[in-house]
């Protein structure tokens, strides 16, 4: 179904998101949360976005949905730019979001049917009360909730069920593209699998495209077709899920993957971890050149001087590293 010549559903071009932080009296410093990232997502694909806290992955997801106004760069949807208010409004009926925390992202004073129905109200997507109600019940059915749950409040549900409500709300406007921001990390292990499977099934059924943001690499690898890795606001590697796992090219990706605790004692014993020294620098004082050079075991002088370009080193495989050829 996907061939590379086909128009990508979402194209992100040189996206930048800076926040001004007060650093003194009448003085502010830009915090470069997302600094010049570019990638595209094909229709029906799941792109995983991983990185450690503070790397800008959540900000990237929100900026792509225009929840923040981008400082620079643009997002193309179906090849068309999203800029004016009208374009953004229309875009938001096609692109929605599932949030991380199912406890704080649902209004405690609204019933489940009102939570799911709110996007329908906002975008005026029904002509009669019955139609609205039917649509809500259909959505609840999609995510495995019973119709008797409709009149209940969020606090009456467990974490997994709340996340189902959040997903139903995201589906309400019939989106093509959903940004899932850590949708399973607040859930118990036994519930995670239910929700991951539901994402899979909904994708098949409704022909959805996901940007799946998470820090749990095993979960991301399971659900994604391709994976992008971010570090301090920059994208450092983008490749097929299996490739990035079995043969990471960027030194940061290598360290990240080797640090994942594998649920298998024998593999854990034989696993050679690549230890990173030091801490993640503050994004307010990001190092010059390649942001990873302060912790990189392969860092050379060139890395301190300039930021490496995000280049295609193999077909469909992008890496931002000066020394990628030498170290692999």
């Amino acid at each position, binding site marked *: 179904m996907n061939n590379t010549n086909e128009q990508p559903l979402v194209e992100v071009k040189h996206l930048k998101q800076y926040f001004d932080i007060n650093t003194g009296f009448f003085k502010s410093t830009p915090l470069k949360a997302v600094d010049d990232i570019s990638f595209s997502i094909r229709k029906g694909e799941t792109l995983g976005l991983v990185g450690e*806290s503070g790397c800008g992955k959540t900000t990237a997801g929100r900026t792509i949905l225009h929840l923040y106004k981008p400082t620079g760069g643009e997002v193309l949807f179906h090849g068309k730019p999203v800029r004016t208010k009208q374009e953004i409004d229309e875009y938001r009926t096609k692109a929605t979001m599932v949030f991380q925390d199912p406890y704080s992202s649902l209004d405690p004073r609204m019933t489940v049917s009102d939570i799911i129905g709110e996007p329908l109200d906002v975008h005026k997507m029904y002509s009669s009360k019955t139609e609205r109600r039917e649509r809500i019940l259909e959505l609840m059915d999609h995510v495995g909730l019973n119709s008797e749950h409709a009149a209940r409040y969020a606090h009456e549900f467990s974490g997994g069920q709340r996340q189902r409500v959040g997903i139903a709300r995201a589906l309400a406007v019939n989106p093509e593209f959903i940004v899932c921001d850590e949708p399973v990390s607040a859930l118990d292990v*036994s519930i995670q699998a239910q929700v991951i499977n539901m994402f*899979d099934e909904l994708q098949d059924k409704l022909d959805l495209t996901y940007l799946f943001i998470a820090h749990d690499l095993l979960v991301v*690898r399971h659900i994604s077709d391709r994976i992008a890795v971010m570090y301090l606001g920059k994208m450092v590697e983008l490749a097929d899920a299996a490739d990035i796992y079995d043969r990471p090219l960027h030194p940061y990706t290598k*360290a990240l993957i080797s*640090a*994942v605790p594998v*649920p*298998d004692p024998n593999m854990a014993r034989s696993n050679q*971890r690549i230890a990173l020294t030091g801490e993640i620098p503050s994004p307010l004082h990001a190092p010059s050149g390649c942001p990873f050079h302060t912790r990189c075991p392969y860092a050379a002088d060139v890395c301190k001087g300039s930021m490496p370009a995000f280049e295609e080193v193999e077909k469909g495989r992008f890496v931002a590293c000066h020394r990628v050829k030498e170290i692999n």
Partner: protein
Amino acid sequence: MSLLEVRNLHTAFYTDAGVVNAVNHISFNLDRGKVLGIVGESGSGKSVTAYSIMQILAGTGRISEGSSIKLDGQELVGAGENVMKDIRGNRISIIFQDPMTSLNPTYTIGRQLSEAILLHTDRNREQARARAIEMLKLVNVNEPEKRMKQYPYEFSGGMRQRVMIAMALACEPDILIADEPTTALDVTIQAGILELMKDIQKELGMAIILITHDLGVVAQMCDEVIVMYAGSICEQGTADEIFYNPKHEYTKGLLRSIPTTGNMGERLQPITGTPIDLLNMPAGCAFAPRCEAAMKICMREKCERMQINENHMAACWMNVRDALNAETAQSEAAQETVQGAEQSEAE
């Protein structure tokens, strides 16, 4: 004699909504120099087990009569607050999940570290400071002299957790209880902290109780594993036995439901249903309502823990059934060989 012997531990919380039996008559041993993992979902009683050992339960929580926790043969249940004050921090230390809230933001790191040392040893202020710096070096904090004068907000999450470990280990406890020590941290930082804990454990020879929900962390760290569900121990054994030869349906379900290197691209096999409500516990096995293999007896009666082999115990009726099946199969086979003469009186 084991370093720590927990027998029949039962801890309940007396809330307005009813009695919550958070830990239901559990027993286990911990030997010197071992890492014991306790895994389970939220509400499985793993943290309450740890807090019961330290006797730092919330106001409504009580350890019931008949429970026994012995440290080196000394009974701790009912021993009184004076005895426990000597034990806590000195012989058993605990580090908590959230390094952000476990430190006092208004005191310097140095003061907080020295305080613990002054309280538990007869060192003077100067010696305590020296010991604190030594501990910071042990947990790989750079420039410890400078760091001593800083406040917690100047430390990153990983660094704060290192300080917590330094504080917990300052008095060389026999047991370190780590309650989700790395859950709030990033993977590369987590890997560093886990490695540090293992190194120090080898150096000082203490025992660790590691409480976590992450099976990956368990595989990496633990010699022995306890799997808890709804306040009871379902299964207990060496890490290899638990991962490669699980004998409780809950453990099997957990292992099937996590993404691994082996099941990429396949649908995961989740455990169905929702987590248990501790106020409405079923009569039989607590896991039975969610168990796909549940039999009639599972709904009616709790299964006792049974020895599977020398390194492995599990509380699941399936093992009884399998044992019975094996027995009948064996006797049938035996009959076939004997054959003829004494015909068909098999049970």
